[in-house]
């Protein structure tokens, strides 16, 4: 399977099964379109356009790639070599929040339930479960999430200390991360997070008007002025450790590249801006009618990214444009997907386990708890079986080893079926992959 695309002045061929990406020229692009290089009359037309010698030279290059297993390669259909074990946890420190963001998938922090905080005891039992059920995995990940996790800051500190105390005995390494809206980020918390968190995700949607339309306080006021200095202060002290200033775009800001620019102007150099996940009937939801505009917007963002790259001081990372064509995950990882429910679980303040944070509050999806461990194998098995090569829509998609089948929660929430991915998400993901590859080629050419 191959995928052809062009962007700006460049042409590309992706060989899905080998993962090889070829930068090509227009003659190759025309020859590979509908496998034209195989058919005499079509080749004649291409010869008229590019000349006989050039066309024959290009055909011989195509044949070289085919013979050397670099084009039209067969799918190796990797079986699940990775023995899954729970090694990552989203710990919901609060089911409460000090903001009331309109698009919040967690129902403004409450997850449709009682507002509550996770206790140290419950967190401790969650950590005990994790170290005992992670098999041979050394690296364990715990994301302090919410609601707003910093509302329960003292418990985070105790849990980090407890996690560190388990490392030696169980031969594990905890990698702690957190996601915060920045409201409570004072100097004490900043210093603590910078010392203890491997990654911190800072929520801000970009321009003040965009941010404040969705991200409001309990009293309905905009949050931008409350958070922006806190976030900048945090980043100024972050040194070279990972963080992301992360925004959400909705149908209200289809021109989201302007928000990325704004975030760059604020001084953030690691940025992620992502499509909202919402029910189709919500006014702010992204639907298929927005796709063409959004794809163009990703192209605008790509141009901004490449232009910024020219100046070392202006460069930035955009999370979804990160792509490592040689050093990314192996094909096994790319086949099994995100790991929700099998490698990754979400833990609520009352100690329930869910396959991931997106399912929290949908009680049919409770898969266990901190006392009894995983008790609902039925759901876990169901998710385990949904690999990218099992899903009918995915197995013949060129992007399958980049997205790994997409988000299970989105698939379920939109289509009621883990096997049917969320179409808007797929289309945007494919566009982002194309933009990432273009950037890679453009920047490599300059270096």
């Amino acid at each position: 399977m191959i995928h052809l695309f062009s962007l700006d002045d460049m042409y590309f061929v992706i060989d899905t099964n080998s993962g090889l990406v070829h930068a090509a020229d227009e003659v190759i692009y025309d020859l590979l379109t509908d496998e034209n290089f195989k058919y005499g009359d079509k080749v004649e037309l291409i010869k008229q356009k590019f000349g006989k010698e050039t066309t024959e030279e290009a055909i011989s290059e195509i044949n070289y790639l085919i013979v050397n297993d670099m084009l039209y390669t067969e799918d190796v259909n990797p079986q699940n070599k990775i023995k899954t074990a729970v090694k990552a946890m989203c710990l919901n420190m609060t089911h409460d929040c000090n903001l009331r963001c309109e698009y919040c998938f967690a129902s403004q922090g409450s997850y449709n339930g009682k507002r509550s905080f996770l206790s140290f005891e419950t967190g401790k039992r969650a950590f005990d479960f994790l170290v005992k059920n992670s098999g041979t995995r050394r690296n364990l990940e715990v994301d302090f999430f919410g609601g707003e996790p910093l509302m329960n800051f003292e418990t985070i500190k105790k849990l980090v200390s407890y996690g560190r105390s388990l490392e030696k005995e169980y031969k594990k390494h905890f990698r702690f991360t957190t996601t915060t809206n920045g409201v409570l980020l004072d100097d004490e918390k900043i210093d603590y997070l910078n010392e203890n968190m491997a990654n911190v995700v800072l929520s801000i949607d970009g321009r003040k008007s965009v941010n404040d339309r969705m991200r409001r306080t309990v009293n309905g006021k905009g949050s931008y002025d409350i958070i922006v200095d806190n976030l900048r202060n945090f980043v100024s002290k972050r040194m070279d450790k990972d963080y992301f200033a992360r925004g959400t775009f909705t149908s209200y800001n289809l021109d989201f590249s302007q928000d990325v620019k704004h975030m760059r102007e604020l001084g953030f150099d690691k940025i992620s801006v992502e499509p909202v996940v919402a029910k189709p009937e919500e006014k702010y939801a992204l639907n298929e009618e927005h796709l063409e505009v959004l794809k163009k917007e990703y192209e605008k963002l790509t141009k901004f990214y490449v232009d910024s790259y020219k100046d070392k001081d202006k460069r930035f990372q955009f999370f979804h444009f990160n792509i490592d064509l040689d050093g990314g995950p192996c094909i096994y990882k790319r086949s099994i997907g995100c790991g929700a429910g099998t490698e990754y679980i979400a833990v609520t303040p009352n100690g329930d386990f869910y396959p991931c944070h997106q399912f929290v509050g949908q009680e049919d999806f409770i898969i266990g708890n901190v006392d009894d461990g995983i008790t609902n194998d039925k759901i876990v098995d169901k998710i385990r079986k949904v690999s990218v090569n099992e899903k009918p829509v995915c197995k013949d998609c060129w992007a399958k080893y980049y997205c790994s089948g997409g988000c299970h929660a989105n698939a379920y929430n939109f289509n009621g079926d883990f096997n049917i991915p969320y179409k808007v998400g797929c289309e945007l993901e494919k566009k982002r992959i194309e933009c990432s590859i273009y950037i890679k080629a453009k920047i490599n050419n300059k270096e």
Partner: protein
Amino acid sequence: MIHIKTLNKTKLTDNMNAKGCGECQTSCQSACKTSCTVGNQKCENK
């Protein structure tokens, strides 16, 4: 090659026996939490 430049040095299918340790980061634990992208994660087994 005049018309084609391959951007990768390795294939996904190279050296498959040495891969699949499972130590890599869970995708949703990065910066997304809503839009699964596995291809941009790092390999921990290098």
